[in-house]
């Protein structure tokens, strides 16, 4: 680690090497990371964060590639975090989303970071939101976050992003199902990709109807449905414009604090919970009585509910009275 203030200066100046190393520290749970984030925090909060989610193969990376092109045309500095799943067997991962974004590799105003989910469910890695803070502090105007896309339960992105695009493949049904399953609440823009597949119009129409029916939005924003054919570069200008329109809308929202409050609360809850878990975990694992309790549980000499309460009380005492 170089000189701390110099390092922070470099990150704030947008130095890609420094930003990348900072994200490594976050991922590695380095003890210095927390303090560094604290120093970067006042410089964050300026970027517009877009989450792109949807099933594997729907074309998320290709859409992001196209969005980068569009946003670059308007001179935005763009940061990307693309999350891929970690293999549950080996703990390793192949991070290949950026393959589709390769044309932007050497653009100085584009920063692409691949990230493994590292066992975290919910579509993001634990480090994603703090990495987003770093990219924000580096001066990227727009952040694009690509989720794993492994299932329909990817709510985590809504704690992080200002605007969420859900990619749907026409005719696959999963899009409509996802909408019915409740993701409707989180989607701001619905992207019907691969618009040459004939039934794109049908899907787009169905989506509009479902959205119309479920006008359960907390804000006054009317979710949009945009048709794209990302491989051909079609519909991407409209898509970029839709995201920017949503950004402008959020800026003029008569009650912007409502959504903001929700997001900040969720983020903060997560942070506190994680910190608590980390500290609690340390107590749990070092308690010499722990293996004994497990044995008692196995022998059914004690019920797990009583045991859990006992252990927690012990931890509480330790925490309040020191070790």
């Amino acid at each position: 680690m170089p000189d701390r203030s110099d390092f922070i200066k470099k990150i704030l100046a947008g130095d890609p090497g420094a930003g990348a190393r900072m994200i490594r520290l976050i991922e590695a749970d380095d003890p210095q990371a927390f303090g560094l984030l604290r120093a970067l925090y006042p410089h964050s909060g300026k970027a517009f964060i877009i989450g792109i989610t949807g099933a594997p193969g729907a074309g998320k990376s290709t859409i992001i590639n196209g969005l980068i092109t569009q946003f670059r045309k308007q001179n935005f500095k763009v940061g990307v975090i693309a999350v891929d799943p970690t293999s549950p067997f080996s703990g390793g991962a192949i991070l290949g989303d950026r393959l589709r974004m390769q044309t932007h590799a050497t653009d100085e105003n584009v920063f692409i970071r691949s990230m493994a989910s590292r066992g975290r469910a919910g579509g993001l890695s634990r480090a994603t939101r703090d990495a987003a803070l770093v990219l924000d502090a580096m001066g990227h105007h727009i952040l694009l976050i690509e989720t794993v896309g492994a299932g329909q339960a990817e709510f985590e992105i809504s704690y992080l992003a200002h605007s969420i695009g859900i990619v749907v493949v026409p005719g696959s049904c999963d899009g409509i199902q996802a909408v019915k399953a409740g993701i409707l609440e989180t989607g701001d823009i619905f992207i019907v990709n691969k618009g040459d597949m004939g039934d794109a119009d049908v899907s787009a129409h169905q989506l509009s109807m479902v959205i119309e029916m479920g006008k359960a939005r907390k804000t006054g924003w009317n979710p949009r449905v945009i048709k794209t054919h990302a491989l051909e570069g079609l519909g991407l200008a409209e898509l970029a414009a839709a995201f920017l329109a949503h950004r402008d809308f959020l800026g003029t929202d008569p009650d912007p604090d409502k959504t903001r409050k929700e997001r900040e609360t969720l983020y903060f809850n997560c942070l506190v919970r994680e910190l608590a878990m980390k500290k609690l975990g340390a107590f749990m694992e070092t308690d010499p009585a722990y293996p004994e309790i497990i044995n008692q549980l196995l022998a059914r000499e004690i019920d797990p509910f009583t045991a859990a309460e006992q252990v927690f009380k012990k931890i509480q005492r330790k925490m309040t009275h020191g070790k």
Partner: protein
Amino acid sequence: MGVAKYIKDERGQIKEVTYQSGIKIKPSYGPEDLERAGFSYEKDLGAPGEYPFTRSLHPQSYRSRAWTTRQYTGFGTPEETNERFKLMIANGQNGLNVAFDLPTQMGYDSDHPLAQGEVGRVGMAIDSLKDFETAFAGIPLDRIGSGLTINAVATIMMAMYQAVAEKFGYSKDQISVTPQNDILKEMIGRGAWIYPVEHGVRLVGDSIAYAVKELPKSNPVSICGYHIRESGATPAQEIAYAFEIAKAYIDNVTARGIAPEAFVGRFSFNFNVYGNMWEQIAKFRAARKLWAKMLKNEYGVTDKKNLFLRGLFGGGGSGLTKEQPENNIMRGAYYALGAALSGAQTTALCSFDEAYTIPTPRSALLSLRTLELLMDEVGMRDTVDPLAGSYFVETLTLEMEEKILEEMQAVQSLGGMVACISNGLIQRKISRQAYEFEKGLQAGVYKKVGLSSALTDKISGKEPDQTNVELHAHNEKWAETSCANLKELRATRDGQAVANSLAALEKAAKGSDNVMPYLVNCCHAYATVGEMAGVFRQVFGEWNEPEFY
């Protein structure tokens, strides 16, 4: 990949044999197997030279003519290649097979930054018609046909070949040019692609449609299951994917209002030959039959000659090992035996040093002699399809046919070959298989002689057997010469004519006109390969390959 899976009992006796295509082999076969498979002589075999051509394309097969062999030639500068061409023709060869360097294959001129270190390395460097004039000087283009190993810019090379012929006074209906021109397999396996999938297919379609009208003696496309197999496909997938690729091209051309009957007879194929010998033989016999059946039933093709599965069956690169390279000489001989027993019309054989280097003249000659030996000494010309009627071979051929059909249906159910390549499904499947196979090889599940003993040597601490092979030298002079020639060309050609021809090409590429005549004009105006390919790059964009895992 190269070998089947054998499960043995504790005494070392073989209990179970499974071929790569997924077919289980019995300890012995008899009439009941043929009966169970519903084998019928008329339906499944027929006489040699008769539909469905399982036995052979020609009634007399090797009796009327031994197989033709194709040596891959071309390196360094056009001058050196021209000398080599002339030598080969003097030795009785009646066709050339031209290799291009990577910058040419990728549509870059020799002075492009990305060409650095690559000029002339794996084939000859071509920048403009000037270079073709040098390479083909003194070659009777009305008698000698040329195969061009080029894909992404095959249209450009075809046009240039026509231009050079015209320059030398031959008319376009006299020449025979066969570019590889199979862009979809490049996307699966060999990696020399440039443009996005649909545009790549459109260019293939343009060249076929053009050849139908303007180049009556040329074969515009040669579909390469070969490279798909090299990348990790099973023998059944090799055939299935090649046929699905062929269908993608056929569909593109028929959509222009040209009937399949008018052009499918000009398709040729390039298939691989390594692995279990019986599986290869069954593969080729089944493939000849399936191709004929498919064209007849699905595309209404009726002319017998248009139903032929023509092509080169040979090579076998991935079967070779780097360890104990001399073993590859024997290995190659058995691959060639398999090709002969399955009635290959044309063949070639990888050289034993291929795992290290571009074949040296000595190793290339050994391959040629191996092929001669089989025809002239061992007895492969004696009788047509000597294995016909074998309980085992006929059963296996039928099972192989079924496997190929299964693999084809899998592709169709996922939207066809263009979709499967665009979204990476095929690449993913194949790289996964290649990985599993490599793991199996390293774990000793599959066996390769020499490789397995090299692993044993390593475990026992013995020095591995590292036979030294000569390496093909790369000459930095080639790049200097090419770049100097380019500089001179740019200074002396008619710049306005070049600009006009390129502008017309751009318009054609943006619209739906066939690009071929425009390319011929560009070539005559001495536009460079990089300039022509650059127009396409600008209009079509470049492909972003999908994930593979």
